[in-house]
Each structure stands twice: as C-alpha cells, then as structure tokens.
C-alpha cells in the first residue's frame, strides 16, 4: 500500500499543470464554449503527442501501458482548466471498449490513431429509458448476410457531435434488461441512416442524440464477441465514473482555492469576510469534503484497474456518491461564499459549479450508486 506519487507521476502532473496554465486554461474554455465543436483538435493532438491519451492504453496499441491512476492524475489537472477535450468519451469509454474487446487488428487500426490525438470517438450507449442502468438496451443489431443492420436511438452521447466514429451498443439477442445479448459496433459518424441532434450542455460542453435508422455495418464492425459486451460496458462505465471523480476533483480543488482567496480579499463590515467565524467554519467543512473527495477519487482510480468486478464497483460507487454529497457541498458553498459575484457568468466559479454538477450526474448519480452498493453481494454477508 503506497499513496505517494512516483517520480514519473509527479513529472506528468507538473507538465499537465503547466499546460493547463499556459494553454488549456479557463479563458481558453470560455472561447471553446462559443464554438460549434466545443473543444480544440489542436489541443487534442498535443495531448496525443505528449502521450497523455494513451497513458493507460496497452503498449501493443501504441499506448504507454501505465495505470488508470496516471490517467486520473492527468484528468484532475485538466479539470482545473475546464478542458473540454473528450478524454472520458473517446479514451475512457470508446477507447476502453476497443482495449477490452477489440482484436489486435482493431486496436492497431482504431485505437492507435485516437490515442495519438488524430481522431476522436464516442460511445453511443444510453437510451431514453435506460437512465443509469448499463445493461438496459433496446437498440437492435440484426445480422445480415455480410454484417449487421442497426436501429434505435441513443441519448446524451458525449462527444457524439464531433466524433469521427461511434462505438454503438445494440442488442443482437435477448430483451431489454438482459445482460446477455448486447454487442458493440464501430460505426462511422457519417454512415447512411445515422442522424444526430446536437445539444449544448449547461456546462458549455456538447452532447448528441443519435438516431440509427437501419444503419448497415460490415461484420468487421463488431468489437468483441457477439452478445458478450455487457462486462466490458460495465467496466468502461466504472472507469468513466472514476474519471469523472478525477476531473471533478480538479474543479473542486480550484473552487476551494478560489473561495479561500476570496474570503481573504473581500471586505464587508470593515473586515475581511474570512475573519467571520461562521464562514471560517464553512470553509473548514469545505476543506474536509474536498480532502475526502480527493481520497475517494484516488481510491476509485486505483480500483479502476481492479479485476474483481464487485470490489471495483463498491469503491467506485463510494467515490461517486462522495462526489454527489460532499462534492456537492463544496460546489454549492463555493457559490454561496462568493455571494452575488458567484452567480455572474463573468466569474469563473460558476463555470466550475456547472461542470461539477454535470459530472455528478454522469455515469450514475449518488442515488444510483447507493442503490448499486447495497445490491452488491458482499453487502448482506456477515463479515467473516
């Protein structure tokens, strides 16, 4: 058991922090949110060149073969600058599925260019009825002579508006809630029969609703075994939840620091407002929750590489729930302690506020994760 950063990790953290300061800062995000794409392919390419996108990918596919913790540390730093580049969508979700299920050829052909920052993907998975249930899929993939025909609708697809290719989940067998029978396919974003609506998010990032109307794909589009994708989907969604905790951690840390600075700077009643004990204690509570979120985020990042699914799920759920409770406490009090200025669009604190709120909901909110936790096999057992 060891929680210190290795020399290499410290170097990466420092270089990402520098990058955020110089290139991927909040000012840059303000520009990005006004653009159609919402993020910058040049920055994406740089991230690829630095090796950040492939840090947790296998070496065989051109990755660095590092741990998920390495990636989480990068995301945490990027969160401080509200970087909107689609690491979670493209690397953790779509890339994760290729890593987990793809053949060597598929990894070479598809994963390698993406982690180099030359292209980006998305994972088109959730549907109107599925909420946070990873194996609730109604979209269908019907086998044809030389491939499959896909139909259905996918909602809130992260990076769905900008991805070159989509990893689409669809049923090759079974019914709505079955774990068996779910397959994933690589689909070109401009495939015939595929249409999308772009939604601007409250956090200034973009997602897409994707309709699949008899989209035909060749047999080689299938990633992994037919009908056997559920385990890998759960795996990438857990990792995405851990990644959301990491990115949110950067936001929360930044919000906490901004708030403490503001308390030291703002005067009312002839004193710095940070001299008022009620606000001091609130700040102390924020410190505690920020630190607990940090511990939870590290726990989740470590567990993201865990092979036992229940162990992984339990601690990642604990972390995501902490983001939804303690993280939300920090989020709302950062605004409250800034007072009026905090609800202006002009001030950065509100941008972080909205991003954290969105991350809280992605890949399962606190309610979902509490429910999942109490449903795990180990919950009922007498300790023994």
């Amino acid at each position, binding site marked *: 058991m060891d929680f210190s950063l290795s020399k290499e990790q410290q170097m990466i953290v420092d270089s990402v922090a520098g990058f955020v300061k110089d290139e991927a800062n909040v000012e840059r995000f303000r520009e990005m949110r006004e653009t159609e794409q919402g993020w910058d392919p040049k920055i994406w390419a740089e991230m690829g060149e630095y090796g950040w996108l492939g840090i947790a990918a296998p070496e065989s596919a051109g990755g660095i073969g590092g741990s998920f913790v390495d990636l989480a540390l990068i995301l945490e730093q990027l969160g401080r600058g509200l970087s909107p580049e689609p690491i979670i969508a493209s690397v953790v979700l779509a890339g994760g599925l290729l890593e987990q299920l793809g053949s060597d050829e598929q990894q070479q052909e598809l994963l390698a260019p993406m982690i180099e920052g030359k292209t980006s993907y998305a994972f088109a998975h*959730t549907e109107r009825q599925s909420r946070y249930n990873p194996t609730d899929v109604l979209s269908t993939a019907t086998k044809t002579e030389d491939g499959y025909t896909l139909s259905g609708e996918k909602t809130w697809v992260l990076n769905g508006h900008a991805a070159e290719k989509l990893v689409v989940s669809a049923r090759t067998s079974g019914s*709505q809630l079955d774990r068996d029978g779910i397959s994933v396919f690589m689909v070109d974003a401009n495939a015939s029969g595929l249409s999308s609506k772009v*939604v601007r998010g*409250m956090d200034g990032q973009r*997602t897409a609703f994707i309709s699949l109307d008899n989209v035909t794909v060749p047999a080689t589009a299938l990633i992994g075994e037919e009908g056997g994708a559920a385990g890998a989907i759960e795996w990438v969604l857990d990792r995405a939840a851990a990644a959301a905790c990491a990115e949110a951690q950067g936001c929360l840390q930044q919000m906490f620091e901004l708030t403490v600075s503001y308390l030291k700077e703002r005067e*009312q009643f002839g004193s710095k407002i940070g001299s008022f004990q009620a606000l001091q204690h609130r700040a102390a509570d924020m410190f505690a929750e920020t630190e607990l979120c940090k511990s939870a985020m590290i726990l989740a990042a470590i567990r993201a590489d865990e092979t036992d699914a229940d162990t992984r799920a339990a601690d990642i759920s604990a972390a995501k729930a902490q983001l939804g409770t303690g993280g939300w406490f920090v989020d709302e009090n950062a605004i409250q302690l800034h007072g*009026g200025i*905090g609800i*202006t669009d002009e001030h950065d604190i509100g941008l972080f506020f909205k991003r954290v709120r969105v991350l809280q*909901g992605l890949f399962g909110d606190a309610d979902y994760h509490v429910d999942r936790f109490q449903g795990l096999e180990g919950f009922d057992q007498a300790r023994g």
Partner: protein
Amino acid sequence: MDMNFSAEDLAFRVEVRDYLDSAMPDHLKAKATQGGGFSHDDEMEWHKILAAKGWAAPRWPVEHGGTAWSVTQSFIFSEECTRANTPTLSPFGLGMVGPLMIQYGTPEQKERFLPKILAGEEVWCQGYSEPNAGSDLASLQLRADDAGDHYILNGQKTWTSAAQYADWIFVLARTSGEGKKQEGITFLLADIKNTDGIDVKPFYTIGGTPAFSDTFFQNAKVPKANRVGPEGGGWTMAKALLGHERTGIGGVGNAKRFIELAKQIARDTPNGTDSLLDDATFRRRIAKLEMRIRTIEMANLRTLASASHGQAPGPESSILKIVGTEATQEATELAMDALGQGAQGWFDAPEGTIHESSRQLQSTFNYLRAATIYGGSNEIQKNIISKHILGLGALG
C-alpha cells in the same frame, strides 16, 4: 385553533379556481405546463389581468386597492395560483416599495405612484447592493448631493433585477458621510428611463440569462419630492421593507411548484420498464422534501396569520427566508436529478431531446443559487435571528 375551510372559503376557492382558469390566456397556460418559464412581458400581461380583477395586491389596505381577504382566503388564493402555475408578479412594486409608500409616503407620492404600481403600468426595480456593499449594505457609496430642490446622484448599483424592464428604481443613497454609516442613508425614487445620467447595463448569470443589471449614476438628478421618509431615514425605510421581502423570497409556492415538476418529470421519465416515479429511492426523496415543505408552509401560515393586514412580519420571518430558499433550491435539485443525464441539457436544446416541461429548469436551477444570497443572504438572516431574537449579538 383550526385549519378548517368554511363553506364561504370553499366557495371562494371555486371562485378563484374558475377565475384563474378563465382569465389565464392560452399562451400562458401553454408555458405553465412547460415549467413556467415566463418572460417579463408574460408577467406584466398577467399583472394587468389580475389588476383589472382587483386581485393584484391582495394584502394592500382596501383603500389603496387591496382586497379585504382573510388569511385563509389569501392562502387559498396563493394555493390556487401555485396550482395553476400562474406567472409570479414582480415583487418590487407590489410587495416592496408600494407597502413602504403606504406606510411612509407623502399623499402626493401615494397618489402619483400607487395606482400605477397596482395597475402594472409602471414597473419597479430595487437599487440596493453595490459592488462593495452586499451583505454589508450600510457601506453603500452611491452619493446623493443636496442641490436645492433635488439631489445629484453619482455612483453605481448592482444586482438590479430586471432593471432593463423598469420604469422606476428605488435606491438607497448616501446623503451624509458623518456619524454612523446607517444614519447617512436616504431612500429615493428615480425615474430610471427618463433621467439623464442613469445607465443600465444588464449582465449574464450562470443561468444563461441577463437577470440582473449594473446601474450607473452620473450626475443624475432626483427631485426631493421623490424622497421617502426624512433625509437620513433610509435605513429605517430599508428595515421596514425587509420583512416583506423575506417572506416573499422564502415563500413556499415556488418550492411546491418544483416538487410538482419533479413528480411530473419522474412520471414521464421511463426507468427501465417502469417510470422513475415508481423508483423507491426517488419516491422517498420527493416525499421527504414534500413533507418538509408542508411544515414550512404551516410556519408561513402562522406568521401571516399573526401579522395584520398591510404590516410586515417581525424578525422571526428570517427563518422563513432561510428554510424557504433552501427548500426551493433542494426542490430544483430534485427535479434536476429526475432528469438524469438530461440535467446537462440547456434551454436551447433541440426539440425532442429534453423533457419539454424542463426546458427552463437547468437555467432556473443555476439562477436560483442566488435565492440564498439575495434579499439579505441566509448568513445575514442568521445574524439577525441571533441578534434580534436570541439576544446573542450584544455579548462581549
């Protein structure tokens, strides 16, 4: 002690319900079913409709155009408005400067202003906060220099809600730098549209709309006839307003609307093979908050019942502001959580992507972070309780 509705009360409820149903134009009803994202024009349209009926300012004294409703009737009226999702009328004229003028205004001021407030013909806004005077309002710096029959105003107000729509602004201005800070403040009424040297610059909030403005004053002239109360009496005026504002802001009507919205979204949101309203965890979250709001509503009723017509409730109404705004925020959070991933959508999302009743929700959710800040932040309310009710302020 009873909560029973008499036969008259029940008849009154029917009358109100029927009236609201018949009086509310279809285009407002359509917006109401979409979570009530009403525009300023919608609000004023509705104001004029209610005014024509004589129901715009139920709690004003009858001689100034109020109703003679009992507390029960007022409660029924507000319940029915919540139920029908009517627009909420702007509080600055009807709930704030109007009652103040009734109490402290000159006969000329009453005659000049009250009818137009009542009729919705003139729109008001509030010029209190300044960049360096928020919670510490008494530190305000907007100067009002004596120039014979008028004052000359220089300085800046901020957080002026809806100033871009207003005809008039009431401001707290500094007429003296001597003595206690509070004693040099004067309460003035300014024609925000037609006074040279007053400039309104709306700015965006995290809700994505320009809900507030900065208001700049540069050698702007305000006649002394537009002063309410004596010179240097502005702090007394501000305190008189405060009680009204607190109950207004903390009111549970909004919280109830958002609870209903959360239920509606949950009912319409498929969750696997059920609807989200069948989800055990979510049902209990709604129930908890709904029960809390019943309790707050009862506290509101008790406060209203104990204050007579036309008077502001005492400092104990601070608790209603605190718990009411917190419950309202929590209700918006619940509605947002009901949306699941959909909570990340924004009001301009394409049709068919977000739940239509929630089109305004994300914006409102963000904007309403202000509810625990404006009108005297909840922290300031706790200072008031601690000092004026619990007697802890004077301890050394």
